[in-house]
């Protein structure tokens, strides 16, 4: 009988680079920057790390294949290192690898590092894979981009719950304004400008009804975590441990795109992954128990609907929670995108999941400066890679030991 991951692993060190258009740094430099902070934070020697996981997504445009770039760049002492890629869940996947490695007892201390260097391709946006997107995919999948696919989610959601597009846009504007306000307080964020609702509502559409402030952007960045067991952490002199409560991944199996049931207004996999995550973490009522969240706000509509798929807002009820400030930093509910989210950090894919965990870690240790929440106990991170109709979802819950 499996017992889940709850409290079997502690995070003892984390690092995160400044995100942004890092013309000054290659992926290798970014890895070093995140790693140096993490290893100093953990207070260990590099050679105490026994296994490592590297996450990135578009490795073909920066590091290349395998985990060799990690081993070479950090000059790891010939330890096992593994490269993982699972769309936007890649960073959390690397973390999962490291966490499971120490939980199994195979290793004492493990490293998870995520990185993405997107600004070396000569144009804005993620690389266009063309026929390298899969030899069969190329022959039939529509000519689409993510904003277009997520815009469909917005129109379907509005139709189902009878919100006018004008009203939904106002809700989305609030989602975005809140994240920008948080990001403005974060020195590591790419974009640090607070915005007004009017500014968001006046912005042109990228894919109707998603405007400029509803869509995330590209950045370069890296983040890292060093994990061990709570016992070893204590032997290392660590106090007030931050432990892993649950790690869940869920993937579409084609039902949304092929079968006749899904109505296009929610994420099948998020809904399932969150249920499994709460069970693993022993959480009964997430709306009451979760203290803070970092969600995959690739689009404002994704964040809005994810509130519902996390079973925090009622179906169709997220707009009301949003407008009541439930997810605002000082709104008295569950602050979301505490560090500014993808809207302020951009999305260096391999790094994002670990960047989110970094904020949870800072908050749980009371080190989040101006963004610091009062006594948070449990933090949830969420990544969604792919499209509403076909995706990879990861959810991680971390918290204070014993909660």
């Amino acid at each position, binding site marked *: 009988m499996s017992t889940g991951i709850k409290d079997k692993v502690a995070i003892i060190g984390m690092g995160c680079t400044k995100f942004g258009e890092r013309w000054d740094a290659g992926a290798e430099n970014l890895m070093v920057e995140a790693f140096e902070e993490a290893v100093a934070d953990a207070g260990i020697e590099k050679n105490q790390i026994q296994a490592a996981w590297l996450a990135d997504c578009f490795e073909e445009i920066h590091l290349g294949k395998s985990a060799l770039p990690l081993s070479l760049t950090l000059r790891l002492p010939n330890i096992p290192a593994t490269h993982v890629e699972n769309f936007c869940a890649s960073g959390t996947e690397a973390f999962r690898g490291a966490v499971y490695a120490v939980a199994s007892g195979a290793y004492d201390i493990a490293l998870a590092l995520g990185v993405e260097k997107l600004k070396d391709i000569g144009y804005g946006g993620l690389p266009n894979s063309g026929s390298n997107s899969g030899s069969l995919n190329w*022959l039939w999948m529509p000519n689409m981009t993510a904003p277009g696919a997520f815009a469909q989610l917005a129109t379907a959601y509005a139709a189902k719950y009878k919100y006018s597009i004008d009203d939904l846009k106002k809700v989305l504007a609030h989602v975005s304004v809140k994240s920008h306000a948080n990001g403005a307080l974060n020195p590591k964020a790419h974009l640090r400008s607070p915005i007004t609702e009017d500014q968001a509502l006046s912005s042109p559409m990228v894919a109707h009804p998603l405007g400029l402030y509803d869509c995330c952007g590209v950045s370069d960045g890296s983040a890292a975590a060093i994990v061990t067991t709570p016992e070893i952490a204590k032997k290392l002199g660590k106090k007030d441990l931050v432990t892993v409560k649950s790690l869940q991944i869920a993937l579409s199996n084609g039902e949304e795109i092929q079968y006749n049931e899904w109505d296009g207004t929610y994420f099948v996999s998020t809904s399932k992954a969150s249920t499994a995550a709460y069970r693993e973490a022993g959480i009964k009522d997430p709306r009451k128990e979760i203290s803070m969240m970092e969600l995959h706000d690739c689009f404002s509509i994704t964040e809005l609907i994810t509130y519902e798929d996390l079973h925090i807002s009622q179906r169709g009820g997220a707009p009301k929670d949003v407008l009541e400030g439930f997810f605002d930093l000082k709104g008295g509910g569950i602050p979301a995108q505490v560090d500014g989210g993808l809207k302020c950090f951009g999305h260096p894919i391999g790094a994002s999941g670990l960047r989110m965990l970094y904020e949870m870690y800072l908050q749980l240790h009371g080190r989040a400066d101006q963004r610091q929440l009062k006594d948070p106990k449990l933090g949830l991170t969420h990544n969604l890679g792919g499209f509403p109709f076909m995706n990879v979802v990861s959810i991680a819950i971390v918290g204070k030991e014993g909660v």
Partner: protein
Amino acid sequence: MVGIVSYGGYIPRRRLNRMAIMQEMGWYIPALMMVAGGERSMCNWDEDSLTMAVASARDCIAGFDKSKIDGLSLATTTPSFSDRQNAGIVSAALNLRDDIATADFTSSLKSATTAVIAALESLKGGDRHHVLVAAADHRKTRSASFYEMWFGDGAASLLLGSEHVIAEYKGSYSLSVDFVDHYRGEGKEFDYTWEERWIRDEGYAKIIPQSIGGLLKKYGLGMKDISKVVYPCFITREHKGIAKKIGASKEQVIDNMHDVTGETGAAHPLVLLVSVLEQAKPGDRIVVASFGQGSDALLFQVTDNITKLAPRKGVKGSLENRKEETGYAKFLTFNGLIEAETGIRAEAETQTSLTTLWRNRKMILGLVGGKCKKCGTVQYPKTDVCVNPRCNAFHAQEDFEFSDKDAKVMSFTGDYLAVSVEPPSVYGMVQFDGGGRTLLDFTDCDLEGIQIGQTMKLSFRRKYYDKERGFVGYYWKAIPK
């Protein structure tokens, strides 16, 4: 008796107002004004001769048991491939049987009539019962040339057979002379043309009367015995002149369609023939002639069966489905006549895995999905494991065709970021009537006109062009019904 069993037509929805050309290029060639009346049909950016041929063929065989088709010929001077049979692609799109004979008839504007004669003659042998002939052309012309004004894009198809014949084939007369009014050399994009006065006086004015005259003489008929006669000639005045020369009255001749489409190349004789069949009555004798290094003239006599032919779009219906285009730059861009910036992003790899295409040919070219024999779930694409979560049976699916199913729009968007010849790229999820759903690009539509729940139908289109290797990728898109 052999003859025409059914017909179909296709004229692209977009019509370029010729004054748009005049407005932009009149400063350069003021004489264009002579032919600047009316409008010409123009392919959408994702259309070509093959897609138009498929559209007209589907119109032609709608409701017909296509397993009875024994042969398919494609006539065009603008095939997508020099060596990969274009008729084979059309056949795959129509999901015809594998054990049929297919052929490309090309390199001449008379190739369609020659293909029809060949098909009809082969039917007489009795081994074959139904042969489909599709003709289409999408000819590129230099900007501000008279030919840009004269030409149009279009297609027509005939199903020829020996049962339920609507127009009996009475015979033909062919002329083959190397009269080079124009030619398109190997590897050249455009026609090279000689003086129009010579083409008119020594070409059209002599060759067409000679072939029609030859036909009538061969079968002991006079023009008075003929109900309608059709032949191409893009010079409108000369088109009328030919009527005079062959002794046909105004009522016997139908015009060259310059005002509504322009001349649709190899397809034109069949486009004209279809528009005559659309108004024909039992007993009518129809002569159709072509022009291109000679001429074929064919004689048909309409039977009672024509009154039983199910309604179809044909040429008339296609003409009614019309969107006026006044932007000349769009025409130029669609036809690759100006090199618009596409950005580094468009430099992505566009190779086609031919092994993947072969294994999935029915899915990609024929839009064939699956139906689970265990639970009955209809699904696209057909895969090894049934998508129904309460079934998930392995290896239980049989072929199920989706191309003729209507579908409802479940969700859609207009995407300004996707690389597209004509932004925004419109696409969405559609639910097929009778089950199954998929994602499709939408085409021939305006974003403002699309609504959730709207009925769409499927259309075979160009999906991508691999510039480096010269490969055209085809797939299906949704268009408003």
